[in-house]
């Protein structure tokens, strides 16, 4: 398996109807590539949390997934508004989601925490007013 970008998708702000489509597609692609089920699940959950974060919290963005012989890199980049306090955002239970989001079952404050837990490496770059880029790596 050589290095290849297997998925690249725009994610629109507030697009709950399509939320999860990207992660679902990725799950199928990883299965076809022969990725072990438990690792597939970790990558899929990370991607789903990233995808939903873009939909819920951002002005829209993009997810891309790179596969190399020994790891899968999921990159989520958005157009703002940025994360004010990364340390706080990583705390389980902390969320900036509003009531409407919580009524849908989101905003539990576990998103970034889940991403951190299921990845082997995580980088978060953010700038208020500009955007956020999150890179999560899961080793194969």
């Amino acid at each position, binding site marked *: 398996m050589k290095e290849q970008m297997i998925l690249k998708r725009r994610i629109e702000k507030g697009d*709950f*109807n399509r*939320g*999860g489509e990207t*992660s*679902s597609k990725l*799950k199928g692609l990883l299965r076809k590539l022969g990725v072990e*089920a*438990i690792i597939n*699940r*970790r990558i*899929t*959950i990370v991607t*789903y*949390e990233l995808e*939903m974060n873009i939909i819920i919290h951002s002005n829209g963005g993009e997810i891309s997934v790179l596969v190399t012989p020994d790891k899968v890199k999921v990159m989520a980049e958005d157009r703002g508004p940025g994360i004010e306090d990364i340390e706080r955002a990583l705390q389980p239970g902390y969320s900036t989601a509003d009531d409407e989001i919580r009524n*849908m*079952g*989101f905003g*539990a*404050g*576990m*998103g970034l*925490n*889940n991403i951190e*837990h*299921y990845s082997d490496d995580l980088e978060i770059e953010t700038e208020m007013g500009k955007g956020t880029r999150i890179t999560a790596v899961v080793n194969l």
Partner: protein
Amino acid sequence: MKLAGIISLLQLEPLMEPDGVEFEVRTACGCDLMSDVLAFSQEKTLLLTGLTNPQVVRTAEMTDIKVIVFVRGKRPQPETIELAREKGIYLYLSKKPMFECCGLLYDRGLNSEEIRKIK
């Protein structure tokens, strides 16, 4: 525990065909927060929930949950049922509240999920 046994225990109404009655369930999870399901779920888990929007099916898909029981008589949206059908996830409806459903299953020996994350 076979799903067929759970169907009669909780008096479940199937929401689609096929109904997956032969499916083996090992653990159960009662949850109304998506990210908690994503944090803690294992395979062969039955999810009990009051959330009826399609994202609950997406959450189940991501965590390989195959059976969802909507409690408190909360009928899911048509889009939710359609997505479940597409993904091969079985949906059921119980008029009983969450607490009672969980208690009945636990009493029958169904294990709760371990509070640990897969890694």
